[in-house]
């Protein structure tokens, strides 16, 4: 029963979603997909509590035992509750509560959360530089070709580089666009996309049919 019931649910919902794809919205069958997604959101909302419990338990255990980096764990706990509690209190009690402009939540989000996220994203530039250095080392014939093509494409992608490439005879930017980006590059991407789509369909089918049960920890 512990296995059969989830397999039956997976089969029924999977088939319902497949059939739903071929019907228009506004029909009983066509709306199945939309309605099931609403249910997923509702279930997901309830499970949020699981996340809060997990993050609190893990970090509190670290603080209690004063494991290395316990200060960060304490900061995590404080941040969660300082941000969450005022945001769920009714704004009618105080303009600092709720999530409207001027609230504690809004202030923390605008002046701490967003800049920190932007900073993390901005560091990507440095990571790209170090990864590119490693990827573009001319050790073999293939990597030398990759290095040359990548250098020209990167040059072409900035205005100054494009102006420089235009100094050469022939339409080098046009060649890059037609043969490198829309030729070799796009062909490989399409191959990967078609393969991935078939792989996803194959896995979906294995799940719907109950062949694949590894997502439940079985098999």
């Amino acid at each position, binding site marked *: 029963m512990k296995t059969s019931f989830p397999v039956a649910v997976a089969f029924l919902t999977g088939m319902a979603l497949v059939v739903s794809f071929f019907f228009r919205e506004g029909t*009983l069958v066509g709306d199945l997909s939309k309605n099931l997604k609403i249910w997923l959101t509702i279930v997901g909302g309830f499970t949020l509590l699981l996340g809060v419990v997990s993050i609190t338990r893990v970090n509190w255990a670290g603080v209690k035992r004063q494991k290395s980096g316990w200060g960060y764990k304490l900061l995590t706990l404080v941040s969660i509750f300082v941000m969450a509690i005022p945001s769920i209190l009714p704004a009618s009690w105080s303009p600092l509560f709720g999530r409207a402009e001027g609230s504690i939540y809004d202030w923390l989000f605008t002046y701490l959360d967003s800049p920190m996220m932007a900073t993390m994203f901005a560091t990507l530039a440095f990571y790209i530089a170090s*990864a590119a250095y490693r990827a573009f080392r001319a050790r073999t014939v293939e990597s030398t070709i990759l290095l040359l093509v990548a250098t020209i494409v990167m040059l072409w992608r900035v205005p100054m580089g494009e102006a420089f490439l235009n100094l050469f005879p022939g339409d080098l930017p046009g060649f890059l666009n037609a043969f490198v980006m829309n030729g070799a590059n796009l062909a490989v991407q399409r191959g990967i996309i078609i393969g991935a789509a078939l*792989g996803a369909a194959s896995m979906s089918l294995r799940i719907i049919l109950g062949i694949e049960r590894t997502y439940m920890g079985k098999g």
Partner: protein
Amino acid sequence: MIKSSDMARKALLWAIVVGPLFLVTIVTAQDSIDTSIAGDSLASAAATVVDSLDSLAAEMANVEDTAPPAEDTTEAAVVAESSFRYDRINAAILVLVFSAAILIFTRWARQGKELFLRKIPGLEAVEEAVGRATEMGRPVLYVPGIAELDEIETIAGISILGRVAKITAQYETPLMVPVRYPLVLAAGQEVVEQAYIEMGKKDAYDKDMVRYVAGEQFAFTANVNGYMMRERPATNIYMGAFFAESLLLAETGNAAGSIQIAGTARPEQLPFFIAACDYTLMGEELYAASAYLSKEPIMLGGLKGQDFVKMLIVIGIVIGVILVALGYGDSYMQLFQSV
């Protein structure tokens, strides 16, 4: 006793045979209309294939990608429009052919027919990588992507997690699985616990091996990167849906000296993983991983069915190239009109 998977297969076979009649009945019974919505991964994956072929066909003919026809909003047109999406019939045919191929190959596999599968080095390296962590006395870090559980890539990541957890349970190697969504947390905990029970190591299982770390993309990344630099896991495995954080994670793992295995179906993130990881599973290899690691013939049958359909698509593309080159490709291209 009949297994539930047998029942499911019989039900699908029944659905393939009786399904079209059922669909026709529903079509004639309903006539309300509206715009389309996205379906589940199976149907939308078929649509993705059809869409890719459509773009390819359009380019082969050296024309602009086919734009959807302008919607006729007259009342007569609205009333006449059927509730069945006839414009998606090509995807429906692909789903049926695909399903039939998978079922046939799975049947052959069950009958004991030998099925050859090429080696996937990234998956062959999983056990070796966990063994390395065991020897070094360091943990294994497993990231099942940063998407919600309704993404098929996340489900693939969770499936592979079960296999990896069995190996860590066998070697009693510490395992750390940070997740971004509570639903993934619940699924991940269930899968890891089951793996430890199956390996007879229930006592070694700790619920906090799988932990929710943050709901924000870059907060999650910062947490995982911090863990890598502090704990220095010997092995990092990334399997699932990744976005801008892919390189942040992989480069940090590289700097921490970990052996890294990644897998994603997102072409735009693959170059980052290839540059920073030791092994990378590309596209379909991610979905094949759980079947490949299980070595179960019935699961491998699905992979062969998938290869068969891929071969049909290649044949379709070659026929298209020839027809378009000879100037007879218009009708053929219409078969792959975008859905």
